[in-house]
C-alpha cells in the first residue's frame, strides 16, 4: 500500500508527519499546478465547486506517481465537502482508475468509522498508538499555523523584500524535522525566533485587512494566487479567518484564531444568525471582529457556487453599508486569472488609502 492525499496549504507537512509516525508508506502528490487543475476540470462534474475539481486532479496525479490508496476527509454536511470523497470515488472509477479510498469521518460524529479508517491504513497500530500519533502531529500542525499567523502580521513591515518569507520557510523546515514533543517545542521556539529576528520597519504605515471566506480558498495559495503574500508585500497587515488545525480540530474553541465557534455565532448574530455549513458564519463573524478592531477593509474569497459563502456574499452589501467597511469579494473558478485579481486588489488598496487619508490617519499627509 502506498497512500497519498490532496494538497491544501501546509496540510502535506501535517499528513507526512502523521503517516511517518504510523509507519504508513506514502507519497506527497506533485504540487498543485495548472496541469492539476486541468486534469481535475476535465474529469470532475462541471457544476461541482472548485476544491472538488482540484483535489480530483491531485488524486489522479498521485496515482500517476505510484500511489494506490487515497486518503480523504468525510463530513456530515450541510456543505458539499462531506460528500466529496463519495463523488470523487465515482468520478475516478468511471474513468477506469484502480485505487482504494479511505475516508476519515469526523471522530465526534462517527468514532467507530474513524478508528476503522486508521485500522485500514495502519493495521499494526493500536488505538492508543494512533491517538498518541494524532496528538503529537496535531500539536506540530498547530505550530505551523501559529507561525503562519505571525508571518501574515509581520511581513508587511519587512525591510528586505522576501526576508520574512525566507525566515518562515526556514522555520517550517526546522519544524518538519522535529519528532518528539520536546523537539517540537524547541523547533517552534527557534522558528519563532527566526521570524522575530527579521529586520522590520515598524514606522511604516500599513493598511489592515481581514481576509475571510471558504477554507480551501484561504489555505491553498495556488487557487488564491498568493494574495496574502501580495497584500503583505504591498504594505498590508493581515488577519485570516481560517487556520488548518482549528478547521480540522475537534475543539470548538479554535486556539489559533482565538475566536471560538460560539464567539463567531455571537458576532455574526443579526446578519447571519445560524450556521450555514462551511465557513459561512465564520466569514461574517470574523468580519464583525475585524470591524470592531478598526480594520480598513475585508477581502472575501469564495469558489463559484459555494453555498455557505454565497450566503455570506449576499449579506455583505448590507453589512458593508451599515458598518461603513469596504468589502471585496472574489468569486473564483477555473477561468479566473491572476491579472484580474491583482488589478481589482490594486484598486481596492487605493480606495482604502484614500479613506485613511480622509480620516487624517496618514502621517505624510499631516506633515505636508
Amino acid at each position, binding site marked *: 500500500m502506498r497512500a497519498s492525499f490532496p494538497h491544501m496549504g501546509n496540510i502535506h507537512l501535517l499528513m507526512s508527519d502523521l503517516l511517518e509516525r504510523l509507519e504508513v508508506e506514502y507519497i506527497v502528490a506533485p504540487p498543485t499546478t495548472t496541469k492539476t487543475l486541468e486534469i481535475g476540470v476535465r474529469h470532475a*462534474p462541471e*457544476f461541482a465547486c472548485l476544491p472538488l475539481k482540484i483535489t480530483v486532479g491531485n488524486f489522479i496525479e498521485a496515482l500517476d506517481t505510484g500511489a494506490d490508496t487515497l486518503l480523504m476527509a468525510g463530513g456530515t454536511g*450541510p456543505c458539499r465537502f462531506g460528500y466529496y470523497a463519495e463523488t470523487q470515488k*465515482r468520478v475516478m472509477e468511471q474513468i477506469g482508475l484502480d485505487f482504494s479510498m479511505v475516508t476519515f469521518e469526523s471522530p465526534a460524529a462517527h468514532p467507530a468509522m474513524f478508528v476503522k479508517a486508521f485500522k485500514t491504513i495502519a493495521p499494526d497500530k493500536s488505538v492508543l498508538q494512533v491517538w498518541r500519533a494524532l496528538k503529537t502531529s496535531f500539536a506540530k500542525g498547530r505550530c505551523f499555523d501559529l507561525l503562519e499567523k505571525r508571518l501574515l502580521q509581520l511581513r508587511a513591515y519587512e525591510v528586505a523584500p522576501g526576508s520574512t518569507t525566507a525566515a518562515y520557510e526556514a522555520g517550517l523546515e526546522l519544524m518538519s524535522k522535529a519528532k518528539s514533543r520536546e523537539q517540537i517545542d524547541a523547533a517552534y521556539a527557534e522558528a519563532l525566533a527566526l521570524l522575530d529576528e527579521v529586520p522590520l520597519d515598524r514606522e511604516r504605515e500599513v493598511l489592515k485587512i481581514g481576509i475571510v471566506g471558504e477554507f480551501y480558498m484561504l489555505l491553498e495559495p495556488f487557487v488564491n494566487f498568493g494574495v496574502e503574500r501580495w497584500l503583505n508585500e504591498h504594505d498590508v497587515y493581515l488577519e485570516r479567518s481560517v487556520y488548518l488545525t482549528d478547521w480540522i480540530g475537534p475543539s470548538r474553541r479554535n486556539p489559533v484564531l482565538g475566536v471560538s465557534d460560539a464567539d463567531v455565532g455571537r458576532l455574526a448574530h443579526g*446578519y*447571519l444568525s445560524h450556521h450555514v455549513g462551511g465557513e459561512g458564519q465564520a466569514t461574517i463573524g470574523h468580519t464583525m471582529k475585524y470591524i470592531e478592531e478598526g480594520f480598513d477593509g475585508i477581502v472575501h474569497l469564495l469558489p463559484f457556487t459555494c453555498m455557505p459563502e454565497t*450566503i455570506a*456574499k449576499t449579506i455583505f452589501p*448590507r453589512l458593508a453599508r451599515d458598518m461603513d467597511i469596504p468589502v471585496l469579494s472574489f468569486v473564483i473558478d477555473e477561468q479566473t486569472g491572476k491579472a484580474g485579481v491583482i488589478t481589482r486588489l490594486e484598486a481596492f488598496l487605493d480606495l482604502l488609502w484614500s479613506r485613511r487619508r480622509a480620516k487624517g490617519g496618514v502621517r505624510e499627509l499631516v506633515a505636508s
Partner: protein
Amino acid sequence: MLGRVTERETRPMRPTIGLPQALVYHKYFPLWGEFFSYLGADVAVSGPTDKRVLNAGLEAADSELCLPVKLFFGHVLELAQQVDFVFVPRIVAVEGDAFTCPKLLGLPDMIGALGERAPSLLSETFNMKRGMRDFYKSVYKVGSVCTDSSIKVYRAWRSGLRAQADYERQLLGGVTPLDVLGQGIPEKEPDLTIGVVGHAYNVYDRHLSMDLINRLRKSGGRVVTGEMLPPKVIERELQRLPKRLFWSYEKEVVGSAFHFIHTGDVDGIIFLLSFACGPDSLTQVLIEHEARKTSKTPMMSLVVDEHSGEAGMATRVEAFVDMLRWQKGRVC
C-alpha cells in the same frame, strides 16, 4: 435586525400572512395554509411565477445564488406591499440525521439583507435535530402572531397536519402538486410513462420548468414523480449508497431516481436540476452513475437556468419523447 416579531402590541387583529409560492411551498403549503387560516389570519399566496416575478428576483438577489433562491426573492418582494408578514422559516432539518440545504439555513438572513426593501418577516427556526420539543416551540412562536392561546395554536397545528397528510395521500395516489393546485392539465391517452425527478420547486414551478409536466402530458406521456413513491421505497433505494446523504430533499430526489432506474416502471427519466445548485452538482454524479451502470432506462438531465430558452428546452423534450416512443415500438 431581521424584522422579527417581538412587539406584541403591534400585532394586527387579523394579520395577513404571505406565503411565497417558491422553494418549500409545493411541499408544505397545505400545512401552513391551514395553520394560519385556522388561527384566523388572512393568507396571501404570491405568484404563480411569471417573468415579472422572476426578473424582480434576479434583480434583487446576488448573482451567484441558485435560481430557485433568486426566484424566492422575487416572490417575497411581490408580497412585501400586500401583507403584514411574509413567512420565511429557517428550515434547518426535517429529520434527525440530515439537513435541508445551506441556503435554507440562511434564507431569512439573506432576505433580511435586502434592508429597507425587506418586508417584516415571520421567521422561526425549525430544527428536528434538536428534537420535537424544540420544533413545537417554534410552532408556538409562529402561532403567537395570531393568538396568545397555546391551545389554539396546538389545534391549528393539528389541523394543519391533517391537511398535509391529506395532501400527501393524494400525491401517493398518483396526482402531482400541480393538479392539487389546479395548474395541471389532464393526461391525454398516454402511451408512455415518464419519471420526472428533481426538486419540487423546479419540477412544479410551471415557469421554471417551462411547464415540463403539462408539456409531457400533451405529448402523450403519463408523468410519475417522487411524491408518488412511499417513503419506505425511497429509503430502500437509498441503501444503495455506501454513505448516507445528509440533505433530506436530495435524498428524495436520489431515491426516486434510483427507483425509476432500477424498476423499469417507466419508459424514460427526466432529471431536472438547477444551475448553481450545490447539492444537485453532486447528486447528478450519483444519479448518472447509477443510470449508466444499469443502462436499462434512458435518462435525460435538464439544467434549469435563467438563460435557458423555452425553444431549446422544448426541442430537447420532444426529441427525448420521440426517442422513447421509437424505442418502445421496437421492443414490443
